[in-house]
């Protein structure tokens, strides 16, 4: 339910004409929340610009997957290319937005999403280049981990994916922007009070002029 809320809200961030990358996991699911008329080019780092919805058994090809290994379709005007070209596109900042997951984000926009020392170290994949070189990084994650600890921190404790890269964070509880003044709370989830969101967040939150609901 909470993931559904995050994805519904995140779908409003995607504009016509954008070129975007959707990270493995929650961000990839965003495809299913976009209105069909939304005119976007979805980049998958394994070599597609113009990725479409998940394929069915009838439309799937063994040669066509997204970076998470799911069989996909492509939209009109799509292109395939090798991994060097795919990452040239990323490092040359040709993507308008990357949507990524997070273990931790902090008030300066630092992001940790690739390694938990001693527990989880499967390798960095494409995350570091996406986080460092995409103009706009949108983070989707639950506000707290399964032990109830805030993922939105004063200061990240895990190894960073990239420094000061995040623009906006959407969680099941809030929408927050990273600014020079710190994290600005701009929206809270229906059914919550501002006080509850502030309580659940390790980082100090600057209250926006008008706090919306989603």
């Amino acid at each position, binding site marked *: 339910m909470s993931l559904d809320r995050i994805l519904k809200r995140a779908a409003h961030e995607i504009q016509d004409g954008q070129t975007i990358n959707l990270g493995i996991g929650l961000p990839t699911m965003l495809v299913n929340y976009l209105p069909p008329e939304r005119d976007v080019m979805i980049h*998958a*780092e*394994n*070599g*597609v610009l113009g990725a479409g*919805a*998940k*394929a*069915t*058994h009838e*439309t*799937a*090809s*063994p*040669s*066509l*997957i997204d*970076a998470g*290994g*799911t*069989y996909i379709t492509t939209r009109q005007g799509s292109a*395939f*290319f*090798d*991994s*060097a070209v*795919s*990452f*040239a596109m*990323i*490092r040359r900042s040709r993507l308008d937005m990357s949507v990524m997951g997070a273990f931790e984000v902090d008030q300066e926009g630092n992001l940790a999403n690739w390694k938990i020392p001693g527990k989880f170290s*499967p*390798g*960095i*994949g*494409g*995350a*570091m*280049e996406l986080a*460092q*070189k995409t103009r706009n990084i949108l983070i989707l994650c639950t506000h707290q981990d399964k032990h109830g600890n805030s993922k939105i921190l004063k200061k990240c404790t895990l*190894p*960073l*994916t*990239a*420094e000061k890269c995040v623009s906006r964070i959407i969680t099941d509880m809030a929408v927050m922007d990273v600014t020079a003044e710190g994290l600005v709370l701009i929206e809270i989830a229906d059914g919550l009070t501002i006080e509850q969101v502030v309580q659940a967040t390790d980082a100090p939150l600057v209250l926006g002029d008008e706090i919306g609901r989603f």
Partner: protein
Amino acid sequence: MHKETTIEQAIATIPNGATIMVGGFGSPGTPFSLIEELLRQRQTGLTLIKNDANEQGLGISRLVEAGQVRKLVTTHIGLNKKIVEMMNGGSLEVSFFPQGILAEKIRTAGAGSFGFLTDIGLHSEITDPTDVMEYQGRKVKIEAALYADFALIHAHQGDHFGNLVYRATAMNFSPLMAMAADKVIAETPNLVTPGTIPPATVHTPSAFLTSIVRIDADGPEYQLMEGRYEP
């Protein structure tokens, strides 16, 4: 110029201890038949360079599980618990690079150069701060080119001269690896007469190829995997 050979002959040129680039991102582009022959011939002490480790029981994971691999150079092995376990247990050495940096290291070798300058990961734990230098007013570090003795490649189509065409996301690292390795062995289920492939659609030109092998590609590893599409 005629490079068709048997799979046994092609793989028999690989000695113990060789460094081998293997194409493929997940299953698409993985040369399953060449890997199977390497498994049968049992060369050991290998260093493999591949984007990922495939999944347990599939592709290069089988070589690692069989103890033929000393070291894996890769970007992400999250879909293979067995390999993560072997890495954590110390029975497999694993070296990680950011995905596009690995691609560029291979591309750089393929272009006959020795390294490039980048700012990726400068402020992260993948960079030793003593490696950071200033060049034309920017903080950068050197990434060395990555060469290999062999590349094993799967192509959708190829001709007897070794011109190759890849399909969709089965392309990934393959054209880069085909340039970077000293000897390049390709498998294809569609081996055609030279002249059949329109010149403008060739992805890897024949000069990079050492040998090309005709395969059936009717095994389950070349087909759709269950559960990865909408039911």
